[in-house]
């Protein structure tokens, strides 16, 4: 343990603790700008400076480990002046269009400017005039708003291992952009949106589709249907001051109805359908040898892009089953439309997703139009929905609960844990066990594949055979798993894993790129806990036990992997040559 | 080549020190070359072969007196060792003809620094 003093008050912290962290012990929150708890300190901004008592030299609190006997001063008039000057310098290189910025009121730079009472411009304004990049349909990059904190690059390169964004050039003219003059849409980008959710300012910001959705809602000729993804229910409350992990499912149904949606569905229902298909697919491959192992989950569209672009030799392992978002949209425009006698061409499906890449999934292949129409018309992030709610002035926290519309709205505990890392695997194993053994698992919860460890492994016995599974989240953790498979393949050995779940974002959808800002591991864990609680509270906790799913198969699809199911619920993947 | 051991050092020293008694060294570092030392070297080479005098023409690094490049150090038995500065083409020829052959020091080209090392 390290003993030191901060502002003359003693602190005792474990070795390696930064001054920034240690200062919390004495109730000091040193101002920061580039620092993000998810990332190693980049030490880029120079706001968090502190000094050692009695010396001239200043240190950055974010990246300096506190040492035994150190006497730290976190503020004196000179420190505050330097912080303010650095802030004013940063502001001199940042546009003033806060009012129409996507991050207005959620901007970390704006907050600092407010705290420091910046009232006038001390320095000449220099704005680069670098054009926007809106080459993906998920987010827009506005390089002029970049403050060079490096978070987006850190997350894109080190955490996600994607290397779409890079720091180019140097000095005052350095900028973040993809390599070789590419637009981000042509780069290795997987549109996971982690860059946007880690950006402290409005330099990377999801494309806002709320205006289009408002227009659809006021069009008397359309029948607007909404589906909410599992994890949205435990995160949206944060936008209204509720603690992370609070389950707001009932309020969401209510508010969506009050926004004007004609039917409110739950993507968790479609997740149950996905599990029926995917677990059956697994059984086919594992028991009957129809298809290669490992089976790899494919419900995360960023993960799909990543595998197609970066690891094309592995594409055949993918589950061909579509993601819940697409299944929900498809069933709305086929099954539901048929049953309700609604002209599917009039139906507009809007999904509320924790994710930016779901926007790109809408048109991923021609199979996303299997209903004869675009199966899902708009995909909004949790953040966009929160803004829509605020536009209506609805008192979200105090709304009454309500039920979803049936047929495509009722879900099981297995469906809802899709929203966190390990959830898909857990749900699939629950059903696969039943499919293989004809029995129901005694203990439904697989602790080994829960939690935030980057790669989680589990070996379970089903009908006398060991099933080895791996769960990875955060794309940067994937390659180690895939390499083990590759090595075994090269040696002609059986795959070390039979089933692999991958979610692109750290924490899975709980930490999705479209979720409320300010995510930390603590918040990811709380959102996951909210989902696990929902699971425990459910009457049905296995996807194939969902009565509405059973009804769907009985009335419409036949059985999992039936011809019709294949036609409607499955897709294919492309081996793209890496750039 | 066999690896050196401590015993070889003295032999090498003796061999080098017992080497040529008459030599000309041209400073051939970036600064010297920039000031024309390459040309100077070629002229010296050419003139020496014309005159047929057995003088070793050597190269060395920079003496540090960049303002006076190209620098040429001349050692001819019986004459003081001198450093000529700003050795132009003509001066180089004159070094061979006048100094080496004629055994006369050139007027107005000698650089005489008052530290011994440069001349030792």
């Amino acid at each position: 343990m390290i003993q030191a003093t901060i502002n003359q008050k003693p602190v005792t912290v474990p070795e390696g603790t930064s001054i920034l962290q240690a200062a919390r012990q004495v109730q000091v929150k040193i101002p920061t700008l580039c620092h993000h708890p998810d990332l190693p300190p980049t030490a880029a901004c120079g706001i968090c400076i502190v000094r050692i008592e009695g010396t001239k030299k200043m240190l950055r609190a974010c990246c300096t480990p506190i040492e035994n006997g150190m006497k730290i001063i976190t503020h004196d008039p000179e420190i505050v002046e330097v912080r303010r000057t650095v802030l004013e310098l940063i502001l001199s290189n940042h546009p003033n269009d806060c009012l129409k910025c996507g991050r207005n009121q959620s901007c970390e730079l704006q907050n600092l400017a407010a705290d420091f009472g910046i009232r006038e411009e001390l320095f000449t304004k220099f704005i680069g005039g670098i054009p926007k990049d809106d080459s993906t349909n998920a987010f827009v990059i506005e390089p002029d708003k970049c403050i060079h904190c490096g978070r987006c690059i850190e997350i894109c390169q080190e955490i996600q291992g994607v290397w779409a964004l890079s720091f180019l050039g140097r000095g005052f003219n350095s900028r973040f952009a993809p390599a070789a003059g590419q637009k981000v849409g042509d780069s290795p980008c997987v549109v996971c949106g982690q860059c946007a959710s880690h950006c402290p300012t409005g330099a990377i910001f999801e494309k806002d589709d709320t205006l289009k959705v408002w227009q659809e809602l006021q069009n008397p000729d359309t029948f607007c249907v909404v589906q909410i993804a599992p994890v949205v229910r435990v995160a949206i409350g944060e936008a209204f001051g509720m603690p992370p992990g609070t389950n707001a499912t009932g309020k969401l149904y209510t508010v969506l109805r009050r926004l004007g949606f004609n039917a409110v569905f739950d993507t968790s229902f479609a997740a149950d359908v996905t599990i029926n298909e995917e677990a059956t697919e697994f059984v086919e491959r594992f028991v009957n040898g129809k298809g290669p192992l490992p089976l790899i989950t494919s419900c995360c569209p960023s993960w799909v892009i990543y595998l197609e672009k970066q690891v094309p030799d592995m594409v055949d392992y993918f589950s061909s089953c579509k993601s819940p978002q697409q299944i929900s949209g498809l069933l709305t425009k086929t099954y539901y439309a048929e049953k309700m006698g609604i002209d599917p061409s009039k139906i507009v499906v809007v999904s509320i997703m924790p994710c930016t890449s779901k926007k790109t999934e809408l048109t991923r292949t021609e199979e996303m139009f299997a209903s004869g129409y675009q199966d899902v018309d708009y995909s909004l992030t949790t953040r966009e929905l929160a803004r829509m709610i605020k536009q209506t002035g609805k008192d979200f926290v105090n709304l009454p609960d309500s039920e979803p519309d049936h047929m495509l709205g009722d879900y099981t505990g297995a469906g809802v844990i899709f929203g966190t890392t390990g959830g898909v695997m857990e749900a699939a194993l629950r059903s696969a066990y039943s499919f293989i053994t004809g029995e129901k698992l005694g203990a439904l919860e697989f602790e080994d594949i829960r939690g935030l460890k980057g790669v989680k492994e589990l070996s379970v016995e089903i009908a006398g055979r060991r099933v080895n599974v791996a769960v990875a989240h955060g794309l940067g953790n994937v390659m180690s798993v895939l390499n083990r498979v590759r090595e075994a393949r090269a040696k002609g050995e059986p795959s070390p894993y039979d089933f692999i779940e991958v979610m692109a974002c750290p924490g899975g959808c709980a930490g999705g790129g479209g979720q409320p800002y300010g995510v930390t591991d603590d918040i990811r864990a709380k959102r996951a806990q909210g989902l696990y609680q929902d699971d425990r509270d459910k009457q049905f906790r296995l996807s194939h036990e969902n009565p509405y799913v059973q009804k769907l198969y009985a009335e419409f699809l036949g059985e999992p992997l039936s011809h019709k199911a294949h036609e409607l619920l499955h897709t294919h993947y492309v081996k793209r040559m890496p750039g | 080549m066999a690896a050196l051991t401590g015993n070889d050092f003295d032999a090498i020293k003796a061999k080098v020190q017992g080497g040529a008694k008459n030599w000309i060294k041209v400073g051939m570092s970036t600064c010297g070359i920039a000031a024309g030392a390459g040309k100077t070297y070629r002229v010296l080479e050419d003139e020496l072969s014309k005159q047929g005098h057995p003088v070793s023409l050597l190269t060395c690094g920079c003496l540090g007196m960049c303002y006076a490049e190209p620098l040429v150090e001349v050692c001819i038995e019986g004459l003081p060792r001198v450093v000529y500065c700003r050795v132009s083409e003509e001066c180089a020829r004159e070094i061979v003809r006048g100094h080496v052959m004629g055994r006369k020091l050139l007027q107005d080209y000698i650089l005489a620094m008052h530290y011994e090392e440069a001349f030792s």
Partner: protein
Amino acid sequence: MEAVSLERAESIVAKWKNKKGNLIMILHDVQDAFGYIPEHVARRISRLLDIPLARIYEVLTFYHYFKLNQPGKYKIAVCMGTACYLKGSPEILEELKTILHVEEGATTSDGLFYIECVRCLGCCGLAPVMAVNGTIYGNLKKGDVVDIISRYSKEG
């Protein structure tokens, strides 16, 4: 053309492949071979070394020595070291720009001359200096520039 350059790039990479700290050395060799780092070569290096293209461009654009475009036949480097600056290299640069009608960091329309400013060629004793394809001209005066340039333009 591309196939030839890729072949050459592959042999450069092969030479360095198993050495540590090879990326910048490979880029140097590529630039020595082609005069700049062509994009298709950068992509090939990325694949051969199994490092992201983004990493290569991060490096390429950070280090001023590397060029992304083919420079002119004659690379004129004007020294902007302190000694040269004090002794008038800004005027030498201005004169070059006037004579050649080209900005620094750019190549003349005939593809002959490329002007750049460099940090200290290491010949401060001869300040101000400039180098044309490595040949150094020292103790320059504004009037010397025309002569030097015309020597090269005659050769074409």
